């Protein structure tokens, strides 16, 4: 059964400014769903609508089969962890975690037990009597999570919980969250981030938001291997996928594409005779490119090399770095700078987009 279902959900501000529309999404119990998307695409808005902090302009939101559109946040069975932690500055860690339970008039012993258990889980036992200002960023983050845990919600909502932490702490906390999720296999989590690594490592499914709607929903590897459209293709993966304009010259079980840049590609995607001559974009990920002496997908002069030890990034072409074609070759290949190079990729690693949509059958 779906733990959480959104059907036709929309958000308008002031009746006119449309931020989200036609959001359909089903989330099963125990999933960890990650919302990603460019800044301002409405990730936080969608999360806050689920939390009940923003009204729902249109559509239906159900939690465990119950329509909660007009139910106040506290009764939706959700808990939220804010980007800025939002700890109550005048309460100790213990009071912060106990606040919701006190409001719910739980018994003293029940509250103490719940707080102790959460503190144990998050290694906060030694800090229970401190005020938030006497904690480090990572500890504050854990208190915020603890405040959610004690309420034992059906759904956890996280809005960029790690973005205020430094890089090392972010990795550590990310792993902690993953472990926490493992300890609580039945709890459902929705997690907003713009960090790709967080999305790829944590998510059971990723929801890519763009242009006021959902661009694609899928497991991390589905999004990586079979992006449904050019937006997702370029959004997932770093450096982003190269898109090369071309024309279909031969259709069939495999498709041959002549690229405007002079290259040739054989793609393991079937097309029909009616596609012959169609203008398409060929997608190839930098890490799938390899050197060749024969038919090439991508060729040209290497303008810049970035050696990262494990691999080297090559920027091809005369254009600025924004438009450059990028290839990622293993090892250190700094010597390639300024030389001409030809690159190709295996047919099953190539993507084809027509009018922005993937031609891969599903």
């Amino acid at each position: 059964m779906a733990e959480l279902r959104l059907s036709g959900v929309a958000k308008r501000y002031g009746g006119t400014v449309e931020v989200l529309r036609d959001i359909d999404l089903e989330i099963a119990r125990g999933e960890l769903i990650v919302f990603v998307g460019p800044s301002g695409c409405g990730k936080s808005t969608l999360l806050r609508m689920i939390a009940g902090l923003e009204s729902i302009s249109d559509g239906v939101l159900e939690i465990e089969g119950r329509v909660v559109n007009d139910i106040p946040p506290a009764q939706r069975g959700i808990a939220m962890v804010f980007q800025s932690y939002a700890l109550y500055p005048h309460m100790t860690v213990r009071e912060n975690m106990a606040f919701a339970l006190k409001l719910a008039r739980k018994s003293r012993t029940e509250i103490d037990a719940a707080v102790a258990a959460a503190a144990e889980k998050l290694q906060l036992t030694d800090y229970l009597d401190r005020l938030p200002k006497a904690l480090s960023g990572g500890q504050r983050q854990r208190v915020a999570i603890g405040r959610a845990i004690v309420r034992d919600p059906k759904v956890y909502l996280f809005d960029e919980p790690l973005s205020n932490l430094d890089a090392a702490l972010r990795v550590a906390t990310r792993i902690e969250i993953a472990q926490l999720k493992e300890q609580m296999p039945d709890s459902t989590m929705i997690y907003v981030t713009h960090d790709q690594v967080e999305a790829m490592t944590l998510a059971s499914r990723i929801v890519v938001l763009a242009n006021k709607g959902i661009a694609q929903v899928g497991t991390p590897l589905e999004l990586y291997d079979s992006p449904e459209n050019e937006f997702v293709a370029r959004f997932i993966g770093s450096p982003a996928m190269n898109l090369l304009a071309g024309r279909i010259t031969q259709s069939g079980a495999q498709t041959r594409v002549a690229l405007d840049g002079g290259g040739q590609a054989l793609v393991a995607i079937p097309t029909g005779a009616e596609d012959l001559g169609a203008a398409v974009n060929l997608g190839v990920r930098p890490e799938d490119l390899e050197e060749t002496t024969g038919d090439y997908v991508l060729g040209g002069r290497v303008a810049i090399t970035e050696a990262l030890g494990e691999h080297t990034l090559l920027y091809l072409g005369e254009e600025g770095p924004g438009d450059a074609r990028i290839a990622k070759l293993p090892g250190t290949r700094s010597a390639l700078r300024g030389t001409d190079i030809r690159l190709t990729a295996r047919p099953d690693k190539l993507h084809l987009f027509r009018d922005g949509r993937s031609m891969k059958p599903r």
Partner: protein
Amino acid sequence: MSPALQGLVMIVLGVGGCVGYFYGANLLLDRVIFPARGAQAGRNINRANLVRPWLFLLPALVALSLYLVYPVIETLRLSLTDRSQGGAFVGLANYRQMAAEPKFWEAMRNNLMWLVVVPALSTGFGLLAAQLTDRIRWGNIAKSIIFMPMAISFVGAAVIWKLVYDARPEGTEQIGVLNALYLWLGGAEPQQWLTLIPANTFLLMIVLIWVQTGFAMVILSAALRGIPEDTIEAAIIDGAGPMQVFFRIKVPQIASTIVVVWTTITLVVLKVFDIVFAMTNGQWGTQVLANYMYDKMFRANDWGLGSASAMVIMLLVLPILIWNVRTARREMR
């Protein structure tokens, strides 16, 4: 010269004088006394920078010691002397005499009552107004109206409220709002409100509350806006209702500001004079310390007793003042 013109000239002279002093003194310091030239340039710049703060503080220090420190010392001295004995030193006799006067204790009692009621109600109403006006569309208009009494002098406010409490003989049209209301509600005859003990003291307090609520509201409104929105949202998700959000999340977060507002109003209350002076002049059991002092000093011309009561007021104000400055300073850090 018309008084308005005179006022304008004084403003120009005063402001011009200040600017002239700071500019001129600075110039003198940099050009003549420690010029940043020659072999000693570096040393001179350092010395000039050491002297400069004192140069700028000098007028304030002079004015303060002339108009504040000296009077305090002189008042203390006078409070220990007796006018009828040609200013002879009499020790604590004035204080003893004062302690024996019922009117003094009435003033003390009333001051204490003012101290309890006015800061509490002003801060309370101010907090309420701040919270409510932040939520509504015409809140800013409401805010301006609530703040407006701040612009009225205490005497002006007293006159306004004297009219509100005014009583005309029975049968004639009442111009006092309170009596009009009282009769309309079925009261038998118009009341001389300001002579009714003990209600009259509270009627006087209302005037000060009316004036001070605006001050409390403005400061507390700014503090309320400074509360991070997400702590409020977190509380809502935790299940807090509007009242709980207000009392358990918002108020504790602005507690230090509330204390500063409270103590600031307390200081005003301890010095309250104009309102009582203009409305009852301390009759009918409404005496307060400042008016008592004025009575002794300028009506009875007893400088010894007057000074003694002034010292009492100062002793009461001092601890609150020190505490207030401390909290305000901690706030700023």
